[in-house]
């Protein structure tokens, strides 16, 4: 298969970027999208030019490192799945494909298609944990958790932290990311002692990092490789309201 690629090149955050055209030829339909970029990079390197910088690591959709916007869609057209799980057979032969980084104000660009997503780490650092010292844990089966709650917690916990939700959102909101972590921990009894402070702190850091608010466009859910449901955002809002009222009442 042959493709015309229009790829975002930008040496660093200070210099201006632009889309550059590249032709790739004789690509097998069983090549993954990232392998197609590897092939292009190989020809760039042997030709003496700098290869295109892009992020990837596990290449099986679980580490959350890859972060490309393809024809305007974070992770490309094959949902649900990360861009490392996208194969060229999903495209028409001869297609023109535009490749850009995740575009979110809170993810500063590092180079070409690579962005800095440390803002997401800072949201978790604000309270996305249960304080449990190694050595102090009670016997595991002393905490009974109904299967339904455990399954729901697992659904929220499946988030891979890629940031596609924020990249897809017209408001650049990281509500789905934050909601997934708040929901995961508040569905479980172990998460209850820190329930209020957790949601208040995480939301406040999320806002401080410059992420937008949710206006229910559901673009986040549509592109999420881990199929995190937007209903967790409603859960986040309820948790926040509950905590804010309690805090307001002086509890």
């Amino acid at each position: 298969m042959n493709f015309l690629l229009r790829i975002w090149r930008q040496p660093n955050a200070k210099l201006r970027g632009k889309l550059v055209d590249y032709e790739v030829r004789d690509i097998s339909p069983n090549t993954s999208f990232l392998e197609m970029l590897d092939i292009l990079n190989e020809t760039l390197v042997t030709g003496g030019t700098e290869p295109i910088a892009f992020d990837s690591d596990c290449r099986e959709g679980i580490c959350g490192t890859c972060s490309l916007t393809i024809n305007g869609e974070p992770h490309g057209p094959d949902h649900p799945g990360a861009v490392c799980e996208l194969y060229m057979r999903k495209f028409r032969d001869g297609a023109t494909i535009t490749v850009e980084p995740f575009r979110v104000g809170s993810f500063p660009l590092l180079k070409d298609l690579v962005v800095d997503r440390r803002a997401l780490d800072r949201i978790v650092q604000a309270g996305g944990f249960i304080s449990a010292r190694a050595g102090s844990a009670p016997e595991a089966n002393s905490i009974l958790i109904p299967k339904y709650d455990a399954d729901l917690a697992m659904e929220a916990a499946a988030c891979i932290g890629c940031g596609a939700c924020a990249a897809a959102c017209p408001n650049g909101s990281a509500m789905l990311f934050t909601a997934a972590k708040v929901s995961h921990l508040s569905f479980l009894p172990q998460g209850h002692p820190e329930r209020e402070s957790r949601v208040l702190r995480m939301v406040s850091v999320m806002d401080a990092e410059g992420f937008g608010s949710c206006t229910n466009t559901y673009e986040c859910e549509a592109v999420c490789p881990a199929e995190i449901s937007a209903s967790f955002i409603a859960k986040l809002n309820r948790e926040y309201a509950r905590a804010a009222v309690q805090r307001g009442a002086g509890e």
Partner: protein
Amino acid sequence: MIGRFDAKVPPGPLAQKWRNHRDHSRLVSPNNRRKFEIIVVGSGLAGGSAAATLGELGYRVKCFCFQDSARRAHSIAAQGGINAAKNYQNDGDSVYRLFHDTIKGGDFRSREANVYRLAETSNNIIDQCVAQGVPFAREYGGLLANRSFGGAQVSRTFYARGQTGQQLLLGCYQALCRQIAAGTVQMFPQTEMLDLVIVEGHAKGIVTRSLCSGKIERHAADAVVLATGGYGNVFYLSTNARGCNVTATYRAFKRGALFANPAFTQIHPTCIPVGGEYQSKLTLMSESLRNDGRVWVPKRKEDRNKAPGEIPETDRDYYLERKYPSYGNLSPRDISSRAAKEVCDEGRGVGPGGRGVYLDFADAIKRLGEHTIRERYGNLFEVYEKITGEDAYKVPMRIYPAVHYTMGGLWVDYDLMSNVPGLFVIGEANFSDHGANRLGASALMQGLVDGYFVLPNTLPNYLAGQMGKRPSPDSPEFRESEKDVRARIEKLLNVKGTRSVDSFHRELGLLLWDKCGMSRHEKGLREALKKIPELREQFWHEVRVPGDGDDFNQSLERAGRVADFLEFAELMCIDALERDESCGAHFREEHQTPEGEALRNDENHAAVFAWEFQGDGKPPILHREPLNFETVHLTQRSYK
């Protein structure tokens, strides 16, 4: 040699060793802990749990990872589960049984005392992870669920769907985040360790490079902990993430740390086969598929390009069922892998390149209905279809073995300290617990046991004598090391050849897979030992690394790692040659039973092979740590 080559296994009966050792180890008092700085390299299950726990205890911790976030370490990709001897199923499990299964699974090439401690501590891990909010699978009554796994007759595996590694890692990442917020841990993402600094015979710091800015930095500490994972990517294609590398442990080796059993690499039998020359990684398909799938290839090689449906039953060779009638398709990992290689070597392999065998679900679908198969394996069939474009409900899957895990690693004593005082090595990066073959669901267990419970209890034993001995990062040893690091980067950038880094890596991988992969023999290893230095020579003359050193430069990152793989590969082959026996995953064709099983040589080789670096171009020196089995009885494995 720097330091001492002494396992320091505590005296006393096996079951009391760990308790006795803790009772008599030295401690660091709470108000003194903040005076110690600890470097942890790696943020996976071992490194992340160690950094979080040491931070919580009050030490000042610096944690480094090459990923952009600690949450992306490769532990995240583990699927199956984590073992623990809880005996929740009342099916006869015990600490002793988990210990015995692990020793036997490792084909009697691991240290009894370490493995017993691993089994003993496994239960604390489940408690700890539940307390952190890891959403393990549960039964309707709210109790934890278990499943069974290869190499055991009990159900002792805890799991969170097919994403156990992800959930355990997120638990430990969150604990780490809490310490970062508390200020006890300082996190350095996108920062790669490029050298270990040894001052007066003790590991006292590292030199790093920022992958974003290219900045080289010197970090001094009171102790250095390496938790940098395995070296499976030396084969280029493996189930490891693209970034996994040997650089940190190999740099430590070059500074004097012993490297143990580098030839012990595990090959997983059920992966999706290689599809083309530019394939960048191999994807694992859960071993559970072999419960219902039947493995076969055509009897005649002329049939190998026919569609599977056109090959009648009588022309198919269900070779696992034929060769191992009692275990059949469920034969252990190493046996199944070698059998697949054998039929492909005979020219009967299927799919592109002829390196694949069928895993056929037609009989199971006929027997149980497509619905049941979909319920059991639906997500795996989806992954398979995404990658290959084929519907495994209609045509058989194609599978082939792939490199998955490395049992070898830096040599450590009972305290998980290497021969270099102050250098601790945990998780897959050390050699300690899995012998010559790792059992399923044991890697996660080892990483967390090391990080949460072993290291925090053994590190003070070293630190107690080190108060006030942390050198300045401006001391001559650090400057010297930084100079070396800079010189190497310059050298890589100045080759200015015409070949890409990946092209060398691919060539090395093919060579090793052929000569030092699933099975090895003396002639092949000697050939590899001749070719590797030639390839390395070519690399240093022909590689092209575009861009410069003080910038975001992914080609440079990879070039440094591949340069180390090109040296490390030689060590691996030397070890494989020296270990003149077969054991576990190390299969020397010269040594097999008439049934084709691994034939150990306990008299001469019941030992850990630990290698000491002697300088570039000089052969390393072998040190042997004899393995004394006081509790278990050595037996020959048989799966007929």
